[in-house]
């Protein structure tokens, strides 16, 4: 069938679909209400077909995208009677193919005549999703019920008519309903925009042609991927990475990857990973699949389209009941960052001997802070999530790592936004926000630097803080002889109290007006032995104040 499609048509359809998801992303960015979306871009867009195959995606947050096919399958299983004008919403990792509860996903079907062919999909991280703590991350949770409201696939719109009762139900369970409604409107707007554009594509080329072009795109992408993989060394390779702790007394939780590479096929087996936890560091199934896909995507060529075709050479094996695939009912909120980062790192480490020129030093871990308080300038409540102080990226054969760039699961896709805008919107004062010297892992190529942030709380009433993350014990790994990056180190400075090191999983931190958060985020891992670093590069590091120690 695909042979009938001429290369120009295939190219037009392929680029049109990716420009549609890009346009959906622009709409999302520009219309959403909460800072986590309109500044930090914690959302993703995709087009999947009715078989749950990923056809096109926008390069926002890699860890979202690989999970969307699983959510699509859950929707297909639940609803056999989808009509034009329907909108389906979900977030549940066990009943809806979701990753974790704050990631709410909207699906809009695209029809050609009476035939339903594709979904335009928007997944966005909500600033709050109910549950025991504000801001969705609850280190104390031992059951998913404590993490927020669970939404199985539901029809939020039926034939173009919104179910206001359902909307009210959701909004009532969320702390900042106004923002939630604004963000939901933005999500639906973006999905509908995509629907219109895809419908136009059908009318322009005919649905048959578009469908045939899609098959041809997926096949071509598979071939392209296999050609790359077949150049790597065959063998069975092992790698592992450690989570600091689960916040409930367990430390050094191991993620173990056994990778079998043969010809153009790759099999990743995570079944040797440690058992599941009582806390939110567990991964859901969809998220584990997404993390493996993400690691693979980093090793193949950057310009290969990231669709189902690219993932065909990849086989994933895992065991339910382990940290990478928890039993139903377990809490999972941290999973899109942890253990996602550790899953990626274990796989990349394993592949160091198979394709050394493609692996990179470890990228930073996520260590978040959310603050809830009252803005004295307008008396309104606010919830602020920290996206500043991005950690450093790993070094590679190409050179030193990026500084202030992000984690394995975001890799420069999360924007920390303008500090000026943050100061206008929140009662916060950013005293310092600069590179953190000496944080990048040494090596022939140095890991990128983390950031030193000192931020003062300018409320009149006390506020509450939560942390959620990892990477204060273990820094991002060095690769092929490179050194690890410095781990995170956050402290709370409060007048009249001893400075206190913040743990990565804390609830209800008491913050007083004038308190200063002293954040030092991790650097990235180095690549290659430090003995091979050039004298020029070392002199430059010193002149720029990036490295203070004499080596």
């Amino acid at each position, binding site marked *: 069938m695909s042979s009938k499609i001429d290369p120009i048509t295939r190219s037009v359809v392929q680029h*049109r679909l990716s420009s549609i998801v890009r346009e959906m992303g622009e709409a999302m960015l*520009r219309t959403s209400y909460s800072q986590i979306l309109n500044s930090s871009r914690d959302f993703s867009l995709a087009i999947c077909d009715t078989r749950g195959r990923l056809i096109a995606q926008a390069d926002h947050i890699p860890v979202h995208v690989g999970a969307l096919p699983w959510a699509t399958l859950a929707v297909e299983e639940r609803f056999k009677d989808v009509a034009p004008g329907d909108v389906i919403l979900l977030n549940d990792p066990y009943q809806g193919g979701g990753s974790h509860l704050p990631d709410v996903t909207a699906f809009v079907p695209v029809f050609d005549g009476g035939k339903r062919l594709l979904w335009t999909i928007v997944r966005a991280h909500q600033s709050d999703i109910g549950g025991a703590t504000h801001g969705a991350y609850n280190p104390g949770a031992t059951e998913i019920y404590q993490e927020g409201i669970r939404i199985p696939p539901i029809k939020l719109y039926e034939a173009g008519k919104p179910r206001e009762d359902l909307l009210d139900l959701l909004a009532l369970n969320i702390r900042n309903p106004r923002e939630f409604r604004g963000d939901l409107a933005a999500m639906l707007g973006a999905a509908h925009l995509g629907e219109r554009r895809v419908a136009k594509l059908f009318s322009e080329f005919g649905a048959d042609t578009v469908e045939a072009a899609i098959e041809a795109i997926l096949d071509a992408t598979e071939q392209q991927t296999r050609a790359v993989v077949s150049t790597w060394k065959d063998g069975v390779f092992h790698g592992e990475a450690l989570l600091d702790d689960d916040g409930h007394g367990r430390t050094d939780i191991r993620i173990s990857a056994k990778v079998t590479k043969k010809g153009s096929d790759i099999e990743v087996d995570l079944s040797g990973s440690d058992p599941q936890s009582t806390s939110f560091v567990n991964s859901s199934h969809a998220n584990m699949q997404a993390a493996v896909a993400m690691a693979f995507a980093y090793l193949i060529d*950057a310009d290969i389209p990231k669709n189902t075709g690219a993932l065909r050479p990849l086989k994933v094996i895992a065991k339910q009941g382990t940290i990478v695939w928890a039993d139903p009912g377990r809490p999972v909120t941290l999973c899109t960052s942890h253990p996602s980062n550790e899953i990626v790192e274990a796989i990349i480490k394993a592949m160091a001997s198979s394709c050394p020129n493609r692996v990179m030093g470890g990228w930073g871990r996520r260590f978040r802070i959310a603050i809830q308080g009252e803005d004295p300038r307008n008396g309104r409540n606010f919830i602020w999530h920290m996206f500043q102080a991005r950690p450093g990226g790993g070094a590679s054969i190409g050179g030193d790592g990026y*500084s202030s760039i992000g984690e394995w699961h975001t*890799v420069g896709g999360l924007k920390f*936004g303008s500090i000026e805008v943050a100061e206008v919107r929140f009662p916060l004062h950013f005293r*310092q926000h600069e*590179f953190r010297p000496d944080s990048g892992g040494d090596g022939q190529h140095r890991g990128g630097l983390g950031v030193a942030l000192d931020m003062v709380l300018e409320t009149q009433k006390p506020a509450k803080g939560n942390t959620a993350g990892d990477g204060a014990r273990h820094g991002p790994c060095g690769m092929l002889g490179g050194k690890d990056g410095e781990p995170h180190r956050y402290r709370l400075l409060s007048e009249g109290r001893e400075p206190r090191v913040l743990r990565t999983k804390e609830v209800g931190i008491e913050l007083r007006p004038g308190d200063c958060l002293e954040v030092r985020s991790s650097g990235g891992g180095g690549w290659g032995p430090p003995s091979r670093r050039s004298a020029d590069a070392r002199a430059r590091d010193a002149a720029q104040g990036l490295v203070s120690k004499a080596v």
Partner: protein
Amino acid sequence: MYTIGVDVGGTYTDLVATDQTGRTVFAKSPSTPADQSVGVMAGLDELARRLGVTRAAMLAATDRLVHGTTVATNALLERKGAKVALLTTEGHRDVVEMREGLKPDRYDLRTPPPEPLVPRERRFGVRERLKADGSAAIPLDAAALGDVIAEVKRSGANSVAVCFLHGYLNPAHELAAVERLAKELPDVSVSRSSDVLPQIKEYERVSTTIVNAYVQPTVQRYLTNLERSLTEAGFKGSLFVVLSHGGMAPVEEASRLAAGTVLSGPAGGISGSRRCAEMLGIPDLVPFDMGGTSTDISLISDGQASLSADGMLAGQRIALRSLDIASIAAGGGSIASVDTSRTLRVGPESAGSVPGPACYGNGGLAATVTDANVVLGYLDAAAFMGGARPLDRAASEAAVDRIAEALQLSRIEAAAGIAKMINLKMADGIRLMTLRRGVDPRKFALLSFGGAAGMHAAEVARELEIRRIIVPTVASVLSAWGMLTSDLRYEVSRTHYGTGRISADEVRALFAALEQQAAGRLRSWFRGEIAIERSAEMRYGEQVFEIDVPLGELDLSAADLVAQIEDRFHRRHEELYTYASRGQEVVFVNARVAAVGKVAPGGRDVGEVTSAAACAPRGKRQAWLGGWREVPVYALDDLRPGHALTGPAIIEAETTTVLVDTGDRMTVNPLGWLDITLR
């Protein structure tokens, strides 16, 4: 009276003059990269000669000279701008290198970060801090400022960017720093963020200010020299520079906002293309401007080119409004080479105008695309530049032979390979502007212009299944011609600070002040009629991105003015994003005014359609079209509206050559332009 357009390209400087009768004359002269004004003055000599007057007489009778320059572009692309230092708020000197935590290409984890224009050792923190309401949390520390200025001096920087947090709201600290710099480092040029881009969001502001500081000394030096040379040569009119947004401004303004000239060159081409679209009645065109060193590709859709403030050039964020253009570093002068794996490459190196292709005989030995075209028989060595600069055919052959030898191919196979490679590269550039944005190029006509486009347009179009090519008679100088149709444009904006809903009086006061400022400024350069374009940047309460809401035809005196503006916002939001939230709070952020001085478009020569009869070729020559063919050669000057032919044919004009491929059908339209339909 004459109006003159001058477009300095990488290889040639193009000039066009029109007079009141609509008579249009053009000239071409080699560019002089070391000092572009030398080439401009030489070109003016040539232009005067063609008008049959002396240069002094021509310049004395010229009221307006419009100039597109690539001085800023080249400085940025080649990293040959000023040595810049940055003065910024203490504790925040890495804003520009952090890029808000973003990097391009999510899945490329092996490309290292780009070098910032200002390395960390020249980014200095100054002790001062404004708060979000504009008040000073820490007053500007005079002693600390003095220390930093001493360090700037030691660093050897010759240009300084000043950008403090919240400086868009209260420029006091920036102004004080600038004053002190002027006193202590009088020879150093200074760019201030609250002047360059007085808008919230520090990354965009600091990056744009740094780019301004980086290109300003070069731009200013160049424009000042040019203005002096022109005055000395007898020019008494006004010199205008085309800006990246397609409007034009006087030298003083272009020097102040030098970062706004980075697309000055290609912007003329877009103005010209838009004018072509209008004259042809074809609203959808892909302007394809292939010159010697670079090729510019843009898109005219529905008769319009798009403007945005999302621009990047050479990896630098420039948040000033500009036209949407893709530039490829390849053209007729691109050099062919063979790498160690015996693979043929074309570019990115270019022979430029000095030494130029081998056939120029200026000592260039490398085989260029132009040399391949000579070998293939497309270019007539003897007739080049109207015979004024005959080409050395033997030199082309020798250069192409070196490539052929390395590839173990015949001479002609090597030449055809070079042509194929450059054509694929050009097609890729067009894909970037069309396919990658989801636009199907097949519905567009290719507007072929620039000296080198005519020989490649057919193959490039075929690659993309574009079926129609238009070659205007002014093809080789279209950018310069387009500059004559640019409007004068001065843009200002102001942020509305206030809480709650804006009042009608506040709207009126904002626009009145902006209009006075913009029109007053424009009035000092321009005597004609001034049109005012108003728009507002607005958003819903919690959003952070504003949308630009055009406020044309709005009655500012209306009682329900604010409601009308809000209604336009809701409608625009719905148009763009499929929904409006009419119950929600609407915030009026920026008022924006453009004062536009409309310039009468140049005259047009509409010929008469004589007949559909074929016209007689001037001769024949051997050209390679997959095999050697005897191809008839026509002079563009002989062609009249209504003439038609079927390829193969070569159409020669003084400054460009057009290849009509076998089976392609060419007609001459009523404007005298070539209209080619591919087989």
